């Protein structure tokens, strides 16, 4: 198997590096860290490593999650593995290019501390070439407004896992508009759905990380 395919497999398996004890019995075998390093040193095209190694793998992982083959632990480890690979590619990915493609401000809303989904979306957006400003969890409307002010053309992504906290997305959008911010807002999270997004006047809804990348690209008018 060529190295890029090996990288893809390692991400799917959640194998971060040679020391990782996961998957069971894989200790000593190369993980994403070693394989990406090898790929870079052997002159592999960085975009190839990124797109066909890392991003392709996360799309497959996302599908497995949707199909109830992968669960939260598997997602977390694959995301760890992808992050490890992205970190090695960072010096080769242009920050200026990222800003040009687009900026996404993302955060979980007030009262909600769940972030696994948001983190996956962040990783996928970075992989797709966007600059991501991750505000973490439990963010007030004011916190989103402050960042939106600094990046008037950024997409604002809101995440929530609870039916109670998702209501706060309404407040965030209201506050943004009251303050004259015109940033397009994308919403997501387990309890969120299209009808809710429309009701609160969000500009888009995506049901998973892969769809989020497509939606962000669409909203910014750039190629995914």
């Amino acid at each position, binding site marked *: 198997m060529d190295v890029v395919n090996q990288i893809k497999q390692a991400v799917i398996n959640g194998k971060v590096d040679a020391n*990782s*004890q*996961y998957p069971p019995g894989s200790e000593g075998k190369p993980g994403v860290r070693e394989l990406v390093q090898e790929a870079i040193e052997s002159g592999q095209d960085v975009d190839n490593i990124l797109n066909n190694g890392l991003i392709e793998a996360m799309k497959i992982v996302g599908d497995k999650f949707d*199909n*109830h*083959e*992968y*669960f*939260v*632990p*598997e997602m*977390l*480890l694959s995301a760890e593995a992808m992050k490890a690979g992205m970190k090695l590619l960072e010096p080769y990915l242009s920050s200026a290019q990222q800003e040009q493609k687009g900026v996404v401000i993302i955060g979980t*809303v*007030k*009262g*909600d*501390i*769940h972030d696994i989904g948001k983190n996956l979306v962040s990783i996928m957006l970075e992989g797709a070439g966007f600059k991501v400003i991750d505000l973490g969890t*439990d963010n007030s409307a004011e916190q989103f407004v402050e960042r939106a002010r600094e990046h008037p053309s950024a997409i604002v992504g809101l995440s929530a896992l609870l*039916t*109670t*906290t998702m*209501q*706060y997305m*309404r*407040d965030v959008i209201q506050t943004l508009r009251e303050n004259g911010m015109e940033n397009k807002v994308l919403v997501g999270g387990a*309890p969120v*759905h299209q*009808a*809710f997004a429309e*009701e609160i006047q969000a500009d888009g809804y995506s049901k998973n990380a892969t769809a989020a990348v497509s939606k962000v690209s669409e909203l910014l008018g750039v190629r995914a």
Partner: protein
Amino acid sequence: MPHPILERLKSGEILLSDGAMGTEIQKYGLATGGCPDEFNLTQPDAVKSIHQKYFEAGSDIVETNTFGANRMRLENDGLQDKVLEINISAVELAKSVCPDGKYVAGSIGPTGALIQPYGTDSKEDIHEIFSEQIEALVKAGADILFIETMMDITEAELAVQAARAITDIPISATMTFEVSDKGVKTSWGVDPETAVRRLTAAGADIVGANCGNGFEQMLVIMEAMRPLFDGYLLAQANAGTPIMESGETVFKETPEDVKPKAQKLLDAGVNILGGCCGTGPEHIRVLRQLVDAANRPK
């Protein structure tokens, strides 16, 4: 000394726990993103009133308002120094309205931690966090512990182990399962067989499921769990799936909707029945009729 709750279950009696606390507290003005556990300190009368309504509706057991009252969760609201105060007052409030022959269950929910290797939290740290909460609940006089809404088997196991090391009172451990065409699993991929095996090995007296997507799915889960062991099974189901309506979360299944579905749960061999999100005193009233009928000598 045999515990009264276990003695009653052993005699074949089915017990009725209570309905939701979270959705009831929301009726008393819990702000979006607010901390329900704090209500024990800021609105004790509201909490007492909820317990009272459940006892009056027929619950044998009510759960304390301590679902998120562990150090890690309270830290999100800056209340980590109030772990003891919140848990102790919660038990005291429930006990103050608890009739003779009825019981108070200490509710213990997940910490939100990601335990190594999935995150940075160590098993030791999580064990300690559970111990802190459990010690307070037990000292304040809880009759039984309800470890609930668990998704990660390691975390659930740690909670049961922490409890078993502290107390002899009965321990119930329930997980939240999803039903799909691939079977019954928690969002962490834990199946009923693993849950039953590891939680009973860790020392749980009662295992089962709570929360999820309503009584119908709960039946699928219970039918998967019942054949796996001879011990006591607990089921606390939601009044359906949460649905958004005009900016509010509603659970659509009424007490009448729930009645035939709850009967099936009793027929499936559940030993402790109750409600989770969206259920209230009226649901419990209906369940009380069913449980009484099921307990009548044949």
